């Protein structure tokens, strides 16, 4: 990676980490839901600073450029976050349905 690329990746990683941490601090996001997001920021920083690890991973996945490795790392985590969100939505939707049904049945007895 060129010096230019490293600076940019580092800034991105730190930026993501700080923004997410700030959101958790303000309770806009819960710790549980922020975990994977923090991993992205932290992971990018680690990969940029630990040159040997980046090289090893790049060889492992068969990428030609180290920037690709960082890119793929981010993409995989984003996919995981999305999947996790979808699972949560399914669960929440089921709970909301259950609640609405219970409320509807309770309302009849009130009358």
């Amino acid at each position, binding site marked *: 990676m060129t010096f230019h690329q490293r600076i940019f990746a580092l800034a991105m990683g730190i930026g993501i980490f700080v923004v997410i941490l700030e959101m958790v601090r303000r309770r806009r996001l819960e710790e549980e839901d922020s975990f994977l997001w923090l991993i992205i920021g932290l992971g990018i920083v680690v990969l940029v600073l630990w040159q040997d690890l980046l090289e090893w991973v790049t060889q492992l996945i068969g990428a030609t450029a180290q920037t690709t490795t960082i890119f793929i790392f981010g993409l995989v985590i984003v996919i995981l976050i999305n999947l996790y969100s979808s699972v949560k939505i399914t669960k929440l939707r*089921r709970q909301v*349905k259950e609640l*609405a*049904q219970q*409320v*509807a*049945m309770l*309302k*009849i007895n009130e009358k």
Partner: protein
Amino acid sequence: MDNFAIIIPAYNEAGRIGSTIADIRKFTDADIIVVSDGSTDNTVNEASEAGATVVELPFNLGYGAALQTGFKYALKMGYRFAVQMDADGQHDPSAIQSLIEPVIKGEVDVTIGSRFLRRGDYKAPFVRKVGMSFFAFIASIFTGKRVTDPTSGFQALNSKVMKFYASDAYPVDYPDADVIIMLHRRGIKFSEIPVAMKRSVGKVSMHSGLKPFFYTFKMLLSILVTLLRRGEGRV
């Protein structure tokens, strides 16, 4: 004989629900439970004035979820049998007796009113017809029985089936061939009974616009995962 409830899911059916209930009353004095699926019109008042018990969902959940609410309520109230019908009057209430009888006698667990076993005045649009016969064909293959009308919302069932319909396995949108296959895999006995049906007037079909494509995909997926689920056991 009359320990059964008639369950009618209704979403904005003002102007139709009253006459639907009145028509049913001509044939049976069974209790009528209307589930208003977050209706914003006069459905709730019209149904209770016509003498139905109205279960009022706070917001729109979808056809399957509304119907399921009715089953949950019927189970809670201790009904042993139920008949589900549509609110728009497309189901002929004179068929209620022939649907419920085999279930009460214990010959089958659920009867499904089929529009296609007998020549009626029901005519579906072409695309829908193709879709319906496609899924009927799939349901027939996997159940080993002739299924002609898997989407039919005119059914009579016992409490065993009600309990299954009240579970999370029941789809919130439109029960179709997937539910028939689930019934079969749980060892629930079903049979189709011919009924005449009218095409509902003045109402936009549940399947319109781009929805058929999504629906077909969703249904195929649903059938696939139903077949992949092993060991869910029999009820």
